[in-house]
């Protein structure tokens, strides 16, 4: 099975760092990670033809900070309002929709969206988000391990 992990976000914007921080942990564990910072359309070429793509990103939907939202798609649009909640101008939901429109979508996509509360330059992640990093890293690995 071909699978990849992509992380999104800026290390310097509070809770937006959650993607890159999880990426660090995964790399330490020997996994390779696609890092597209704040520009998810960079994923379009890398994800073509994959069986599974796992995405980690910060979202803002109004839930408690640190909440992990899990969305899964088998070729249909991602459920829920994550398109609205993405912290990026051209968000991950749009990027995946674009991949679908262009026939480049992975067979299965799992988005782990971590609820963030602050996104200012130079801010630290909120404690609840920092505390979710271990669980999140484990969840990414579990997603990859699933057949």
């Amino acid at each position: 099975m071909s699978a990849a992990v992509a992380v999104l976000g800026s290390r310097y914007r509070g809770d937006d760092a959650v993607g890159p921080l999880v990426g660090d942990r995964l790399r330490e564990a020997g996994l390779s990670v696609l890092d597209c910072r704040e520009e998810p359309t960079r994923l379009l070429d890398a994800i073509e033809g994959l069986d599974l793509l796992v995405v980690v990103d910060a979202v803002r939907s109004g839930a408690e900070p640190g909440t992990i939202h899990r969305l899964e798609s088998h070729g249909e649009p991602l459920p829920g309002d994550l398109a609205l909640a993405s912290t990026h101008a051209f968000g991950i939901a749009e990027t995946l929709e674009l991949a679908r429109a262009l026939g480049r979508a992975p067979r299965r996509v799992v988005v782990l969206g971590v609820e963030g509360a602050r996104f200012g330059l130079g801010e630290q992640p909120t404690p609840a988000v920092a505390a979710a990093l271990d669980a999140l890293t484990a969840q990414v690995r579990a997603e990859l391990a699933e057949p």
Partner: protein
Amino acid sequence: MSEPETREIRTDYLARVEGEGAMLIRLRGDELEEVQFKIFEPPRFFEALLRGRQYTEAPDITARICGICPIAYIASACNAMEAVCGVDLPDELRALRRLIYCGEWIESHVLHTAMLHAPDFLGYDGAVELARDRRDLVELALRLKKAGNTLMRVIGGREVHPINLRVGGFYRAPTVSELQALVPELEWARDAAVELTRWVAGFEFPDYEQDYAFVGLRQPGEYAIERGRIVSSTGLDIDVSEYEHHFTETHVERSNALHSTLEGVGPYLVGPLARYALSSELLSPLAREVAAEVGLGPVCRNPFRSIVVRAVETVYAADEALRLIAAYERPAEPWVDVVPRAGTGHGCTEAPRGICWHRYEIDDEGVILDAKIVPPTSQNQKVIEEDLVGVVRQSLHLPEDELAHRCEQTIRNYDPCISCATHFLKLEIERM
């Protein structure tokens, strides 16, 4: 005792937060009462982060300010450090810096033009809807954008966060054959950019012009990208080190936003419209030909048409990249030694969105004592606000959602993502 007499005052007031990107339009009846636009978050965090670090670290640290245009920050920081240390970059290394910058122009301009701005003109919500109807165009744009990415990766080591650039040049210079291998795709990209220009030039543009003061770099003999003097359409012509004598950032009342103004002139515009107005005759013959074909005069004052100018600049960037590759000889040394000495240095380059200006003060050991960074979007903030006032006045008859859309479109004339300015943009229309 009787109940105290009370009065209920209806407010219907939406709470808002300063410090995030926000745009508020307040209408009283059919009169525009106020436009508040605030997207710019000064990079104070990075300026503070730079103090106490080595002069060689500035390019790498500032590259993180914007996920879309790292080369602009790297190049401006390198220029400033080389200036303070009295180093003049040899021509071949200067050309290589210009070449990777062409890659960034292609990538950023195509993302902006095709993926974020074009859907506005065609009545689509975004690139996804566009892709469903015009898959060919979106495929073309993605391949074009990728040609820019590839150029950045081959020279910069990585496309997302280039690591091969340093004060004084590069860690490793690409071989001639590595660059030659890019030629076929860049030739395709040049043609594709011409097609892109013809396509966007056929859009319908709102009839809106503003008499801007244009500010940009100008360099004899070439369309300025990675160096030049700061010039304006109002007659300014200064070395980049004199910037602070002529430009000021003022705090806007009731917010922590800053507005940049040019002394004796006021608000000014940087970016494609400005560059084009100041130097269009220095574009390559092909880019000039395409500009003429699609009806761009020597100056364009309609900000909605900036999408056309961006496309013409994409033609130029591909054309210029091919010229630079054809002339490339691998330098004997990929970098020149830059020995620190105490002083202040300035650097300014043409980021895709306009001039990106840096100043650093370092000591004899190369430790950064002070840093100041002025990104393009901060400079455009005031003219964006003025555009919004003008556009809203023209569009008051529109239903609210269309008015909101027109405002977003106006903002996207300048910045697709606001990523180097702020993270979220909330648009609020308040009718009183």
